[in-house]
């Protein structure tokens, strides 16, 4: 078959000039460039063409395609419709794909706390939840007859402590036994963070749970000072609650630290009106009796320790008013964070 490319070009140009709508443009495009269009027909004719004509036909087809494409491109900048082909897509429809999963807010809070201390050079170590009386109490200078050892304040297990005949294993009532374990195993200097679950036989209500989470910190070297404890925790609070936080260190009592303090922050920074100060953590200089219990030489080391409740930090920071929400795991709660 013979093709009069000259004529086809002329006709295409005339048709292009007459285009006055996107629909007309589409008709034009299909006529020349569609699957059954002119260009395709020219290519299809190559099969039956004389070998001497093949080159000319191939070139003619390619030239025609370029020519039509150019006509379309010129014309589309003149047609005063924003989009040439097809209907306007409603781009306000949501994108496809499933949403990301959610990391539990307690995990996020714990990660955030850990990240601050790791950023300052602490290392994170996890220690067991099932503990001995030595690690949970004796090693921390909590006397044999101390009320916290009562079955009212600590969960004991129906299992004997292999290291202490006749004594039961227990569920740690705080993360502080991690201090004892780590000091028994390592020599200073050290700066460690111990995060994890702790257990206390408290009746469950909006602010109490028999299981909750703590993050413990311990720094020991040969000259740790109370001023450094203050500096460290001040920096922590600034990073966790924001640079405008106001803190106060209030004397308190823990058997394993001396001096001991509790740290309060100003309630205002969290938008809380009903009180002025919010207690957020306990801390102090490691009691020399604890160093004695873990076998450090007398007077050789100084240290400080601190501990905070992860639930409490999360409740304060995110305005969560009931601790039970954390463990109930209602999807409407989980998906908020």
């Amino acid at each position, binding site marked *: 078959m013979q093709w009069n490319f000259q004529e086809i070009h002329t006709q295409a140009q005339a048709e292009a000039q007459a285009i006055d709508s996107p629909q007309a443009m589409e008709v034009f495009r299909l006529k020349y460039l569609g699957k059954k269009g002119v260009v395709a027909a020219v290519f299809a004719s190559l099969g039956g063409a004389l070998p001497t004509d093949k080159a000319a036909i191939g070139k003619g087809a390619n030239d025609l395609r370029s020519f039509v494409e150019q006509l379309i491109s010129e014309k589309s900048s003149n047609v005063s419709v924003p989009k040439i082909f097809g209907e306007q897509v409603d781009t306000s429809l949501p994108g496809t794909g499933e949403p990301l999963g959610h990391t539990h807010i307690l995990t996020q809070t714990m990660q955030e706390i850990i990240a601050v201390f790791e950023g300052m050079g602490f290392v994170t170590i996890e220690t067991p939840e099932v503990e001995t009386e030595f690690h949970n109490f004796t090693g921390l200078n909590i006397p044999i007859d101390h009320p916290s050892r009562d079955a009212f304040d600590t969960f004991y297990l129906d299992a004997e402590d292999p290291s202490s005949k006749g004594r039961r294993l227990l569920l740690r009532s705080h993360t502080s036994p991690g201090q004892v374990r780590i000091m028994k195993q390592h020599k200073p200097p050290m700066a460690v963070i111990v995060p994890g679950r702790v257990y206390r*036989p408290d009746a469950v209500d909006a602010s109490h749970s028999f299981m909750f989470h703590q993050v413990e910190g311990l720094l020991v070297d040969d000259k740790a000072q109370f001023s450094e404890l203050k500096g460290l925790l001040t920096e922590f609070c600034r990073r966790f609650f924001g640079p405008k936080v106001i803190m106060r260190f209030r004397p308190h009592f823990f058997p394993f630290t001396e001096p001991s303090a509790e740290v309060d922050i100003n309630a205002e920074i969290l938008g809380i009106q009903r009180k002025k100060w919010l207690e957020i953590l306990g801390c102090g200089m490691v009691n020399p009796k604890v160093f004695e219990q873990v076998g450090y030489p007398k007077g050789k080391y100084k240290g400080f320790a601190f501990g905070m409740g992860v639930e409490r930090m999360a409740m304060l920071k995110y305005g969560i008013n009931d601790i039970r929400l954390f463990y*109930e795991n209602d999807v409407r709660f989980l998906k908020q964070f």
Partner: protein
Amino acid sequence: MKLSINWLKDYIDPKLSTDALIERLTMAGLEVEAIESVNGDTVLEIEITPNRPDCLNILGLAREIGAITGKTVKSPKIKNHKSTVIKNLIHIEDKKACSRYIGTLIRDVQIKDVPQAMKQRLISLGINAINNAVDITNFVLMETGQPLHAFDFDKLAGGKIAVRRARAGETIVTLDGIERKLDTSILVIADAEKPVAIAGVMGGQDTQITAATKNILLESAHFEMGLVRRASRSLGLRSDSSYRFERNVNFEDVLTGANRATDLLLQLTGGHVSGRGEVSVKTKNVSTKIKVKISDIESLLGLEIKPLKVKTWLEKLGFKLTAKAGTLIVTVPGNRADVQQDVDVIEEVARMIGFDRLPSKLPTIKTVNITVDKRPREIREKIRRVLMAGSIDEIITHNMINSKALVKTNMANLPVVRVFNPLSQDQELMRPSMLPSMLQVALTNINRGQKDFRFFEFGKRYFVDAEKETLGILISGRRAHDWRTSKKDTVEIFDLKGLMQRIFQAIGINPVFEANQFAVLDTSCATTFMLNGKYLGSLGKIDRKILNNWDIKNQDIYYAGLHLDEVYPLPNSSLKYQPISEFPAIGRDVSLAVKKEIPYQKIEEICHQQGGDILRSVQFIEQYLGDKIQPGTKGLVFSCQYQSNARTLREDEVNAVHERILQALTHDLAAIRR
């Protein structure tokens, strides 16, 4: 501890506004938790830490305020009533349990009301005024911290007191009118016949002071703190006395309290001291002496300090000091048993300076000795990324569970660690599996109409000798929320398997999937994954019977568990670069019919056995289970990819290998080509 400002002013005027006093007390470690106004008096509720029983009375608080403000405390003058000794009035069986007992016999008393001023003091502290004898014991308790009790002497059988353990079967009706069964661990005050008081906790009704009382036996004693605490807890009975004994009462105050109360009883009842009986293991406290170096105070607190200031503060707090060459010798008063070593003294100094005035600086952190195995955390974080991308939400569940939950989950036969003292049956054991607590969360959500959920938890399973870290995943409901990406169908086992395969990929392990070994899963739709012969976990549809037990009726739930404690020790995958082939790959699609029971995995295995080194991969395309195929068979479509790193493969060599594979499939599995 309640502090009445009016009462306080009997001993000291702090010359501070209430707000300023609250601030100073709080910043000295005596945190004011509440303020109330009672009949024109201001009453502060102060949290006293357990190491400071000396502050559980008005005089103790006055001394602290004196030290904080520098003002002087005026203590009441107390006469020592040295009177006739009554022999054998007091008998103590166990001197460890009761190290001191002073019984003062006051005769010819007149029981009536106390003067309004004293009544008002008690009311401010929330104590009911009853009669002069009782009110005086309460007044002196609050004033000095020494618990006291007044017996109607004429009602004490035999006119004697024995301090002993209760005998089996004994009971007592306490002052609150409740009959209490006593056990042999409880220390009691008894007359010749029966218990008349629970030592340190509460007196008995039979011997209480009444309008008719003529003669009073006043008890002032020291009971062992642990005994009182346990008695109080086991009887569920707390009192102002037990609260103080639990925290320890100063041995020396036994006499002070007895004398102060005797003074007031003589003044306000018109009685006279007939005599006194005392049993005591010692006469005085042995006083503790502590050496404190000024340089140690300075280095621990990080500031310079004037020894003279330290001396003034400590003396105001009741310590006695001698100083020489930069060292202080501190003698601790009997009511400060909490001060035992130099750091305790340093804390007193720090309190007086004010923690907020101590300097603050960042520590130089050195940690050279501890290398931590980072792998567990890295693995968890890699897994977390896959789970986040898979729209799985993290949950944190209770790991103390009810044994019924185990029975419902068909796990009653698992070995468990029981809690010895659970609060309730709901926490009677430590979970041996993640599944029951996760199913509880599923149920909670289903009951709230939230039937589409995907949960995971990093938790622990508990055994007698180990806590094993585990990943649990629970999915149910609609597969996708968007009609464009999915039909309205529900999740199935392959969603979970794909997720688990992505997890394996993320953490660089390659376990094999085998027949299910986890009993709670439906055997027809579950698989177990193993690595080098070790069980790593299972996944599949939860058995319908178990879901019925949980009252989950209308939906299937899929569970996967991965034993992380088995994964952590696995060696890090050692990845090496594989050269990318420059030569084209050739694909051959295969469509077969095989017996339904033949697993697809078997086909892949045969392909690889026969495929030599030119078969690169076998890719599953489709499974057909419809009726356009011979009954008992299923259709499988997959593609074999052939490629070499060394050369372009020739058609005929690919054909030869491919034909060999097809023949093996036909021969070994009776596969029919479609």
